[in-house]
């Protein structure tokens, strides 16, 4: 079983980037805007995989940090500047910061308990967004101006341009994820996944590794959130609901946990199923279609789209009790 993390062939990567970049020339504005949203969601899923697949920490909180990034970008856009780069920086930082604050306690747990703690984090962020008036409460944050790339620049309104910005953020985030996975930290993260007790016995605090991974993943999700806002110019609590968190986690499994690129594809499959296939041909039955995709994937793609199976001994839920 070889780990493909960080081992894409340069030619393939280049081809992929070129094709993705060419999309706005080829497709009409709706599919392009769908593509842009897919890219933002795919980046959330990549960040989820960084924790779930690479570090062995299945999480439901990433959509929460995505929301922090999205709302931060929106607030910056409304109250400060329409500069997308500033929005990206602020959103990433804010999400990373909240990941630090929440992670300090959350990463003390593991396995299913960690999953439930992250569910709580995601839901609490969701509730906060739903209640704070300056975030638009349940109606969502509206009136976000179109972003610009440099002071005085042309605002990005057309789907093609916001798509390119989303693509840029996506590639940036994906690159960060790959670099981290290839780094010594990435090795430590995979070691945490395989055996936290062993890593401690080697003299490495697993807590620190988990926490750093959690912060990086949170920041990446925040970046994805800013890319979302740049396109939709509207954020609502519904964007960070439990159902979205669940889809993010399931996209990781569907795509092939631990491979980073597989989950990104998984995210695209989920979105295309819901917003294209169901929206165009099976109105009102998105759940049915997604359910069928998931069930089929379990039996037909036992290793996920990327053809990789997460270790059967993925963090046991009671890993607190060392045998």
């Amino acid at each position, binding site marked *: 079983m070889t780990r493909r993390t960080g081992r894409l062939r340069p030619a393939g990567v280049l081809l992929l980037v070129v094709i993705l970049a060419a999309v706005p020339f080829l497709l009409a504005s709706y599919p392009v805007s769908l593509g842009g949203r897919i890219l933002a969601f795919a980046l959330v899923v990549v960040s989820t995989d960084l924790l779930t697949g690479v570090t062995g920490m*299945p999480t439901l909180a990433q959509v929460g940090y995505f929301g922090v990034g999205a709302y931060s970008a929106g607030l910056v856009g409304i109250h400060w500047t329409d500069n997308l780069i500033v929005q990206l920086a602020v959103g990433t930082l804010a999400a990373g910061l909240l990941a630090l604050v929440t992670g300090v306690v959350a990463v003390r747990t593991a396995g299913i308990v960690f999953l439930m703690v992250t569910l709580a984090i995601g839901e609490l962020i969701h509730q906060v967004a739903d209640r704070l008036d300056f975030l638009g409460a349940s109606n969502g944050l509206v009136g976000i101006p179109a972003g610009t790339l440099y002071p005085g620049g042309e605002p990005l309104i057309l789907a093609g341009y916001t798509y390119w910005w989303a693509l840029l953020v996506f590639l940036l985030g994906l690159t960060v994820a790959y670099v981290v996975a290839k780094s010594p930290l990435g090795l430590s993260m995979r070691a945490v996944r395989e055996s936290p007790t062993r890593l401690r016995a080697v003299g490495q605090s697993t807590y620190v590794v988990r926490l750093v991974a959690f912060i990086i993943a949170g920041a990446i999700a925040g970046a994805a959130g800013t890319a979302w806002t740049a396109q939709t110019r509207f954020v609502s609590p519904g964007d960070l609901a439990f159902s979205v968190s669940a889809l993010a986690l399931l996209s990781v499994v569907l795509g092939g946990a631990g491979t980073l690129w597989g989950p990104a594809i998984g995210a695209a499959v989920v979105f295309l199923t819901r917003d294209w296939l169901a929206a165009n041909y099976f109105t009102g039955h998105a759940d049915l279609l997604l359910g069928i995709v998931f069930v089929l994937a379990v039996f037909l793609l036992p290793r996920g789209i990327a053809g990789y199976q997460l270790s059967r001994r993925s963090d046991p839920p009671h890993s607190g*009790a060392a045998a």
Partner: protein
Amino acid sequence: MGWLDANLLTMLNGLALAALLFLIAVGLSLVFGTMDVLNLAHGVVSLTGAYIGVALLDPATGTIGFIVAMLAAAAIGLVLGAVLAAVTSGVSDHLRQALLTLGIAMIAGDVLGEVFGSDVRSVPPPAFLGGSVEILGRSYPAYRLAVIVLSLIIGVALFLVLERTKAGALVRATVADRTMVEAIGVRSRLVLGGVFAVGAALATLGGLLAGPVLGAQPGLDNTVLLLALVVVVIGGLGSIRGAVLGAVLVGQVQTLGVSLLPDLASFLLFGAMAVVLLLKPAGLLPARYGTGARA
């Protein structure tokens, strides 16, 4: 009127909610403990129970009719559980289990919506429990009291089966030490598969009994699933006593909690869960695992 008087009814009501939560959640917990399967289709199984109530009950239904509906719900639950046990048997990775069972839940939820419509449906309590009784000078629905009593009976029965029978001993042993599953024979594996069926039957039964309180509508399955997950994780996965305590706690948080801290109502459930898990990651009453004393 003292604090206790003012809140006694609310606490009683929290118990009624706890009774329903226990019935629904305990199966989820036992299935995880014995089969190592996190069954995210549990919510839709429970919703099926509620829809069985929609199909079989009307306001004129008498005791016999209600018992028939309960038996029907339990029977359908047994079948659903057996099917789920079979389908998940080859899938040991928790994440793939999540993908599979949530996928099944989404399909089943859509089908239920097609069959019973998207409107919210109400499930009438049996006629003789339809009224209210006077408690502390306030009206209280008799049905909810009956739910508490019924859940107590079922809970005690479950406890006795687990503590006093051979099959129960096997289940407890499996929960305590999962590695022994590899060593056991086919018959014993069937017993464990039976846990899945019984767990699902309790969920459908719980769903049916919850019908007159919560109604039945698409989407309720997710609400129920989340609540059940919170209950079993707070209590300790695989532990019956944990499920009881978790249900009581969640029941009180949802009633007494929101009554005392109304401004924080939307944060209470998940906030409470986070606090419990950070203080006691294995839950409040975890199933007894090997402590390592024999290491």
